[in-house]
């Protein structure tokens, strides 16, 4: 009886927080909503423009192994944006919702979960928009090679982001600089994460270094299962698993130790 009750409360809290975040998104002026949906389009436009300038031909065929560069970019950027947004929004989750901890039902970790769910929701809307546009213009390879695996890739990436985000959010409450460091680092990650290039074109020595970045594995995973003409043979599943299991456990352990302090801050 008691357990059922607390599960019910948990879902009510998550729902309330999710709706609040969504409403704030819509009310934060046009700019907030505009950027949410146009960010990937602008990124796509810029990178295709650069690509055309360098190679002299549009996104249809690249190098010897031909694949659709537009679809490649879209699937990479949407996934990378999701990761970045989850990380950035969870870092500030405790601080932004501090006023709500006066209600004893609201546990700090709920605010992190709600923000992750919101980003997942926004990402799925963006994905649907892309698919719709792709169908409308009859782009040939807009649909993924393996839908289930791509879905798994996105969800797995979200889980990874949640773990890192929780860890940083807890850390950020007591050591301010961690959040700033991560915000800056996440900018550089765009270049180092195989978002807009496949690992197969990277020279061997650099590739071995890049493979230490867990995000590279996620990107290769998603690209490999989305885009025709690419594969996933650089992906190390064990490495991905380590990175998805360790941060949330560490984060949860720290969180449970510090939960009361975060509430009464």
């Amino acid at each position, binding site marked *: 009886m008691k357990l059922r009750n607390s599960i019910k409360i948990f879902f*009510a809290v998550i729902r309330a927080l999710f709706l609040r975040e969504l409403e704030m998104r819509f009310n934060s002026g046009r700019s907030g909503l505009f950027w949410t949906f146009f960010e990937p389009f602008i990124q796509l436009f810029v990178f295709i423009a650069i690509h055309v300038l360098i190679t002299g031909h549009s996104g249809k065929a690249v190098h010897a192994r031909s694949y659709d560069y537009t679809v490649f970019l879209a699937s990479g950027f949407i996934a990378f944006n999701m990761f970045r947004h989850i990380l950035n929004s969870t870092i500030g989750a405790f601080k932004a919702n501090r006023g709500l901890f*006066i209600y004893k039902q609201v546990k700090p970790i709920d605010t992190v979960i709600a923000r992750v769910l919101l980003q997942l929701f926004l990402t799925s809307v963006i994905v649907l928009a892309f698919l719709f546009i792709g169908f409308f213009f009859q782009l040939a390879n807009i649909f993924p090679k393996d839908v289930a695996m791509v879905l798994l890739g996105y969800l797995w990436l979200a889980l990874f982001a949640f773990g890192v985000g929780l860890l940083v959010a807890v850390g950020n409450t007591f050591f301010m600089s961690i959040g700033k460091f991560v915000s800056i680092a996440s900018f550089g990650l765009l270049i180092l994460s195989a978002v807009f290039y496949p690992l197969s074109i990277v020279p061997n020595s650099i590739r071995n270094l890049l493979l230490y970045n867990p995000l590279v594995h996620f990107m290769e995973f998603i690209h490999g299962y989305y885009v025709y003409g690419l594969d996933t043979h650089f992906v190390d599943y064990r490495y991905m698993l380590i990175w998805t299991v360790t941060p949330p456990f560490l984060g949860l352990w720290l969180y449970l130790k510090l939960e009361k302090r975060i509430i009464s801050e």
Partner: protein
Amino acid sequence: MIQLNNVTKYFYTKVGKKYILQDVTLTIPEGNIGILGRNGAGKSTLMRMLGKIEFPQKGRIVSENSFSWPLGLRGGFVGNMTGRSNVKFVCNLYGKNKEEAHQIIEYVKSFSELGDYFDMPTKTYSSGMKGRLGFGLSLAFDFDYMLIDETLSVGDARFRKKAKEALKKKIEQCNVILVSHDMKTLSQMCQTGLLLNNGELLYYDDVNEAIEHYKEINKKGK
């Protein structure tokens, strides 16, 4: 009924530990309770502990009753949400359905007399407006104990009177735990009293006794 078992609560200050409660064991019977204590004695902290958003270092506070959130001057609102969406949020939190939520929103809107401000972000509110919104909101929900921290002194004289009337009506169905520096309010609203002094918590069957004792302590200045 509220039970405190060996409860210890302290804060670290520059000169060492500052005790709010020092190994307090006490059973507080049901009733409207006024909390007294000098500034910094920890009245608000005690309220927050009863509301389960602040936690003692040792011991437990046990009760089978439900408590409201501690209704303080600061509100418990998020600045960039409107008054309306703050109210909506609390309705969602307590699992109210659409119809109930609608009723609560209308009630809070008319009680708080915020007018157009009800649909503006709460960061644009004055502290009196925040207090009015918070007070109206807490009246719309049912608890065994209402935790009210100084909020009866918000707004102008007319609103204060209205708030007092509303609270009087509300405490026919529930109990109130009240922190106030206004002795008249305390003796009007409460029957029993708690006095917080130097880490001790004393219970009085009659709130007026507590007030007398409090005045004595205040005179001595320690």
